[in-house]
């Protein structure tokens, strides 16, 4: 059974009241939504908060979900996108992860010469462009899937992606030239 089929089955069973199916869904989406929120916010603590908000909303909404079960991820990421936007409006952007000692210590993935703000790479982009890149990069969604989630055509997604990449390319070139 493919992943989407399994998820759809979980959605159907959760909708009918299965607690175990709902727990499985939450377990799956906790990691996925957290990745998405980290990508959007650049701060793990803030992302965890937004993830929590998303999961709470998801618990309340799954029983009412009447869409295509195979498109449940779009539904969840739509919630997550709103939660991130609300958090950013409420509190503004927090500091980027580079000073997050906890994560740096735990993960220790930031090599000394690459550690300055890898998670802030997308910070300079407009919110929608950033969201598109996060969904494409972090979640591996196709342009069609992103478009369905954001209410845009796939072509529009690709155009915005192109603009985002062009901006980033210029940024990377400047940084590279400065070294």
């Amino acid at each position: 059974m493919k992943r989407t089929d399994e998820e759809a089955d979980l959605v159907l069973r959760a909708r009918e009241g299965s607690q175990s199916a709902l727990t499985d869904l939450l377990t799956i989406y906790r990691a996925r939504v957290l990745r998405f929120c980290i990508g959007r916010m650049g701060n793990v603590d803030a992302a965890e908060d937004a993830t929590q908000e998303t999961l709470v909303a998801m618990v309340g909404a799954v029983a009412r979900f009447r869409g295509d079960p195979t498109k449940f991820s779009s539904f969840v990421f739509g919630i997550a996108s709103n939660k991130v936007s609300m958090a950013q409006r409420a509190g503004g952007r927090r500091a980027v992860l580079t000073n997050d000692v906890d994560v740096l210590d735990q993960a220790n993935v930031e090599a000394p010469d690459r550690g300055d703000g890898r998670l802030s790479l997308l910070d300079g982009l407009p919110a929608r462009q950033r969201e598109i890149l996060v969904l494409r990069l972090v979640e591996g969604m196709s342009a069609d899937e992103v478009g369905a989630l954001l209410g845009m055509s796939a072509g529009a997604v690709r155009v915005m992606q192109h603009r985002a990449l062009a901006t980033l390319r210029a940024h990377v070139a400047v940084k590279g030239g400065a070294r």
Partner: protein
Amino acid sequence: MTDDQVDSFDVDADDAFLDFLSDSNDPLAAALTGYQDAVATAAAHRVATMGPIDLAALQAASSTGLAPTAVSSGATSWAPPDLVAASVAGIVALVSVGVALFNPVPYGVPASTVTSQQVTQTPPNPAPTSLIRTTAASPTTDASQASAPMPSSTGSATAGASVPPVAPSTDTVPPVTTGPVTQQPTSRPSAAPTTIAPTTDPSGAPTAQPTSDPTSTTSPYWNSVQVQIRLALGLINPAGRLPTPQELDRAQTHLDNAQGFVNQMRQTQCAADGTCPPAVATQLTLAQRDIDAARTQLNDRRGEI
């Protein structure tokens, strides 16, 4: 890559986007895949510290529409430990006099939902910091995360972008023989490594770190071993599907890294005649058992795909 090519891959095809990301010679592709891995790794580590989903608490929060602090009976709380540890009375006093500038909002709680009444309900005892972090899982024993979805860099079948950003996984060898080891304080073999992070493979980077308790007998390599094993298991057992060959290769790398840390632990903390302190000996045994078990799973998976 020329601008024309960028235009074409952006506008015409998703596959070209993935091809672009796998181009390690392109600085933008390298930056993006580095970003991709950083996000995935940060999320994986955060998830690894979370306990199982507390469905009851989430449902309670959802049904009331309030922040969980308000529905918490003390078993769960959104308040971070440092806030809980602070004087609750002081917080209540500040809120009660309407000091608007002071924001006692526990992280995760929308400011609009926090009232003085809710703050007074913050339990005085340390509690898990959030509903999705219900347990401070110990990396030494928690194998439950093995089946949790781990960060495939792409999260889809389009796994071309999941290649580690800068170097192929084959470049990653156990840290015993890599540069990072030379950065460790060899004059103090019992001390934790300070900065060890190879620049090649972020996902396979050593994660050795000092334990939080300097008097602890836990080896500084212990957490690193466990993290590497957990990352490997996550790749070996992706939720709801079979792993890709690339994921299994990356899992192999993580297991090699774990084995390297075990070797390093043995070299730095055991005597030349092979005798080890009891705690270290136990950890070595457990770590080796976990690595061997993961290798067995890996081999089984290779047979399945």
